């Protein structure tokens, strides 16, 4: 039963990873940007909630109303300014700029909020859970996060496939010059994609804050986990990302069940194994020629 519980917790954790990976996957798929500040942005989102609403320690639901929209604006503006500019100088510049931003965000948070860790609560919901069997606990909060993750993935997928702006984003991803020729305002559309990605990052940061303690330096690990979920799942496929998140979550919880210090390492090892055996991931969107 302990193992069944580990599997269930792993799948629930996978939802959180998928939520993290969604923004990373979107930015890379559409803009070709690897955002090395991804994890730090999530943590920044959580700290914005801490700073603006001291009461988030009692209920984080309020933060959901304003942090993701705020980050959407932030994403739009940064894409129109710093990120857009760096993209025109090539992928190396983008990497270096986002890495520089990551260092800045981490240390600014350290300076502003000290190294103390925080976490969010959702009132009574934080600790409430279902107990279908003796050793199995299904936290409502964690199930809620999984549901939110699936919803976000569905909404992003529908947004990309069904809406006009989504079509323009996909056109941009396929061929930005051709998209520009047919009248797509590429800079605006790229910034919309960044806005969506940033909003999901903020959401992921808030979700993480309810899951575990976070501190200014939590971002690095989150970036690596999100990235591993994307690679395990397969590049460019949002459903693959969900699968990848679940595989990583399973590896971590089962690893932790074997030995509490082995969890994160087990996740990394599964990632390396996938890389060695199936470098295109479990569910690649496209088959390489």
């Amino acid at each position, binding site marked *: 039963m302990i193992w069944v519980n580990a599997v269930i917790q792993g799948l629930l954790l996978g939802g959180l990873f998928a939520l993290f990976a969604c923004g990373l996957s979107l930015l890379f798929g559409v803009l070709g940007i690897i955002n090395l500040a991804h994890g730090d942005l999530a943590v920044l989102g959580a700290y914005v909630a801490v700073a603006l609403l001291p009461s988030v320690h009692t209920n984080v639901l309020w933060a959901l109303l304003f942090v993701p929209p705020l980050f959407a604006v932030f994403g739009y503006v940064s894409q129109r300014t710093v990120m857009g500019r760096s993209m025109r100088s090539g992928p190396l510049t983008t990497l*270096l700029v986002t*890495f520089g*931003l990551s260092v800045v965000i981490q240390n600014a948070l350290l300076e502003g909020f000290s190294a103390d860790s925080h976490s969010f609560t959702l009132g009574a919901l934080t600790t409430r859970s279902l107990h279908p069997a003796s050793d199995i606990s299904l936290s409502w909060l964690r199930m809620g996060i999984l549901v939110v993750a699936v919803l976000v993935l569905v909404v992003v997928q529908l947004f990309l496939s069904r809406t006009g702006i989504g079509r323009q984003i996909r056109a941009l991803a396929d061929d930005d010059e051709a998209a520009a020729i047919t009248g797509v305002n590429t800079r605006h559309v790229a910034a919309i994609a960044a806005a969506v990605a940033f909003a999901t990052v903020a959401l992921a940061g808030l979700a993480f804050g309810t899951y575990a303690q976070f501190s200014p330096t939590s971002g690095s690990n989150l970036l690596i986990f999100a*990235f591993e979920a994307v690679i395990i799942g397969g590049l460019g496929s949002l459903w693959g990302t969900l699968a990848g998140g679940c595989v990583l979550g399973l590896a971590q919880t089962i690893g932790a069940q074997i030995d509490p*210090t082995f969890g*994160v390492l087990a996740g990394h090892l599964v990632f*390396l194994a996938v890389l060695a055996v199936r470098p295109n991931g479990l569910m690649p969107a496209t088959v390489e020629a």
Partner: protein
Amino acid sequence: MTEMATREGAADESPAAPSQVSGVRIRRSTRSSRLAIAPALIVLAVLAYLPFLFAQDTTNTMVNFFILLVLGMTWNVLAGYAGLVSVGQQAFLGAGAYSVLWLAQQGMDPLAALPVAAVFCGVVAIPVSWLVFRLRGGYFAIGTWAVAEVFALVTIRSSALGGGTGTNLPGLDGYDPVTLGALTYWAALAIAVLTLLGSYLMLRSRVGLALTAVRDDDHAAEGVGVRPAGAKRVVYLLAAIGAGAAGGVLAISQLNVQADNVYGVQWAAYMIFVVLIGGIGTLEGPIIGTIVFFILQQTLASHGAWYLILVGLVAVVMALWSPRGLWGIAERFGVHLFPVGYRVVHPEESQS
């Protein structure tokens, strides 16, 4: 980059047969590089003599300078020439430090263990390269980072190596502190000089030519038959050896090895910063960058996080507005201390 135009035409010419085209010669050195040889040797001699002039504090500081310099130079060759933007070179820094620790625990002299540790890192880099070379661009960056995390997590599982809290480096009790300080300094200096010479010679070799060709235009390079994969792997192994040696010196100079310190991602930040500010894709850049970074570190380190915020901001600004770094500004005036390219000298210019 000014050498680009001449490089393709000259690539197949061996310097030994320069006179096939009448009166045109291929020159590999520049006036500034020839003028710089004597001062460079003097600087080297002064640096080598430093332990006799200054107290141990100064040489200890200089050891950190050389470690940073080696990391900057190897990362520069990786990212600036081979296009391998690694955020995980601290894997080899840590592996080098822990190899020295392990060898010392087995009774080997830590200083003698340095070259062994460096070579070990090169060997470890072979299987690592199989994995991470499957990733491109930014995914390579995060993949190398994940590998560094794996190295750290595996290392702290060993209680003999100090677990997560670290342990002291044994085997140095036989040295008196002053001698040990001087020996560590010379080891660090030697590694820095070897890294510089090694990068210079490698970039002038066939491998370097292939890399610069691929960096400047990969399609054109593949069109004329350059295969970048092998060259990139060579660079990756050499960079791992350099980082491993730096890690070994770090362990000896700190007399202590701790996983969070030697495997920390802040090292990647330092390497990137040093290279960015000095000028990526030039051999001179990391030297300038290390000097600037070091001055910043010495003056601002007491301000804690503010110093790293400033470092990050400068990196962003440099990447966006001055991608060729400080040395890029110098190169505009035609200064080359380490010319790795080929330039065609027309007869009328050759007197100059």
